[in-house]
């Protein structure tokens, strides 16, 4: 699977020259692979074998079977001779090794998996230490730091976001949900089109509200969120990230006054941006919610249907790729 690699036309001569140059590298790689696989078959759980897996995974971190073998060596060959403190130190160096690999290959699943495994195997300790001083807390704190560096390099890397949720779930004392709201806000303010951060924000609020919030509290929070998302909508009305978040806040339109208020706010934006696809698309959706939420008589319903049909017709013109969908919605 290759992504974003430019095609170069190589003549037969060039290919032959490249292969000649690569030959010694290729032979060394094949020899090393055969050696490590033979050791794996023989269940050789020695330090020497461990070091060879380091070398091989450095050349190719996609070799999931070699990561598996490495863990077997740790469990069966190295850990049994170590004190808990020694295991902790070894796992730290293991994490350093995978940090280097992640910098070069931020999207290789097996490297992220290996980190998760390391964290799950940190022994309890040091003896008698409170939670804040425990080895596990130290490790998770560092993981969060590294994860944030990964998200600085690529703010949409879903591996890093998934790992982040894994960290926060594994050590709930590490960060409060409020801290996570601050973090997502920072990421969103750096780029309104970072849907991964908007998504995370919706999940954090959901968790917060599940812990127990009054309807009044939820409403207040949502009001400030509506203001926040408005900034993004006004900055670039063509960016779908903020519109999706807006839809999450509206939900099924349970809060009728809020639904009406937001419809008015989008109509205002539409008056400034009359050809905004997302304004029109969202208004059609919200007005349809309105019909299911409020008791309208026949004339009101007919008027609303006429209004949304005018918008759907306009959408067919400004967004022709999805013309048939707008046609179907108008039927």
């Amino acid at each position, binding site marked *: *699977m*290759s992504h974003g690699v430019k095609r170069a036309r190589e003549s037969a001569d060039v290919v032959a020259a490249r292969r000649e140059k690569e030959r010694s590298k290729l032979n060394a790689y094949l020899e090393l692979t055969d050696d490590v696989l033979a050791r794996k078959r023989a269940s050789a759980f020695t330090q020497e074998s461990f070091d060879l897996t380091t070398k091989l995974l450095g*050349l190719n971190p996609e070799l999931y079977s070699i990561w598996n073998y490495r863990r077997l060596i740790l469990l069966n060959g190295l850990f049994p001779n170590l004190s808990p403190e020694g295991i902790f130190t070894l796992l730290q160096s293991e994490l350093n090794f995978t940090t280097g690999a992640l910098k070069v290959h931020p999207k290789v699943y097996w490297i992220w998996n290996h980190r998760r495994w390391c964290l799950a195997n940190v022994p309890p300790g040091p003896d008698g230490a409170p939670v804040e001083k425990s080895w596990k807390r130290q490790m998770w704190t560092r993981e969060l730091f590294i994860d944030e560096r990964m998200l600085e390099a690529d703010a949409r890397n879903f591996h890093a976001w998934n790992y982040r949720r894994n960290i926060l779930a594994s050590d709930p004392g590490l960060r409060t949900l409020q801290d996570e709201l601050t973090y997502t806000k920072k990421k969103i303010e750096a780029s309104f089109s970072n849907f991964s951060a908007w998504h995370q924000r919706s999940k954090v609020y959901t968790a917060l509200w599940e812990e127990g919030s009054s309807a009044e509290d939820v409403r207040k929070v949502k009001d400030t969120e509506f203001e926040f998302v408005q900034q993004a909508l006004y900055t670039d009305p063509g960016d*779908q990230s903020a519109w999706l978040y807006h839809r999450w806040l509206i939900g099924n339109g349970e809060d009728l006054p809020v639904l009406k208020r937001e419809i008015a706010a989008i109509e205002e934006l539409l008056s400034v941006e009359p050809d905004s696809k997302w304004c029109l698309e969202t208004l059609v959706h919200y007005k349809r919610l309105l019909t299911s939420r409020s008791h309208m008589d026949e004339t009101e319903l007919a008027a609303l249907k006429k209004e949304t049909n005018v918008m759907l017709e306009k959408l067919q013109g400004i967004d*022709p790729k999805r013309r048939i969908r707008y046609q179907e919605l108008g039927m």
Partner: protein
Amino acid sequence: MDALLIDKHVKYIQSLGENTDDLMYHLTAHLRLNAIYWGLTALFIMGHPEALVKEDVIAFVMSCWDDDEGAFGAHPGHDAHVLPTLSSIQILVMYDEVERADKERLVSYLAARQNPSGSFSGDRWGETDTRFSYITLQALELLGRLDAIDKEKAVAHIRRCKNYDGGFGATEGAESHSGQVFVCTAALTILDRLDEIDQPNLAWWLAERQLPNGGLNGRPEKLEDVCYSFWVLSALSILHKLKWIDSDALIRFILSAQDPDGGGIADRPGDMVDVFHTVFGLCGLSLLGHPDVREINPIYCLPAEIAKKRGLHMNYQVLGKDEA
């Protein structure tokens, strides 16, 4: 470029096994079984299944058997995992040789991947992902043993991975992604539980993956890529909403990513081709009713005639076929 270069793509796939003195060939050993499945599927839907030697392919598949665990690894000597295991079963099914595999051991390996929560792991090391739910379910259906797992729990786990935008993520809490949308939609089809899907919302989200140049992306505000032609289209096909995107524009985009000299299809025009983007570009063209490509069944990503013969799920849409 408006022609589909079938002959070049067939030659390109045939040539893949000949690069054994290329370092890159060996660095992708972990994908070898997947790559053979991708190449063979592409050849089937291009009408040239004979372009690879059947006995050689089957011999290679059988050489990847991990006898300690009772499933297939990606390459001889590599560990069992559900990814290469599904590819192996699919290859054997395409050749009508599934009896060659040790079905009993495969079923017990696959069933053991289900966790108490209903999620599935990729192997004994425990990584969970909705991809593995789909892979295990498809493999078990192909073996005729869907009864070996707890279907209700499998559905419940996928339900927990659903987001408010109608899409699905890799795990609970994860962002919607078209690849995960494909696996979850297809898995729910296999389980006869499409009622779990918020269909208008999901079809809308999928339609919004199309960008001005006709290509599809995998998530909001990301770049287009040929492989999403399959992840997005397969789900739209299962929902019978293929018309919600501009198919002509997408066909032009896929065709423009072909390598007119060496054959094969790339992620984007001008990039290096690979067999992964070649098969998924062709599958996209198939669902859009391209006359030179045979029908793919998007639920399994297997040739439709084979799926039909085995009595698999067939409820999906193909443009230009039985359509008013």
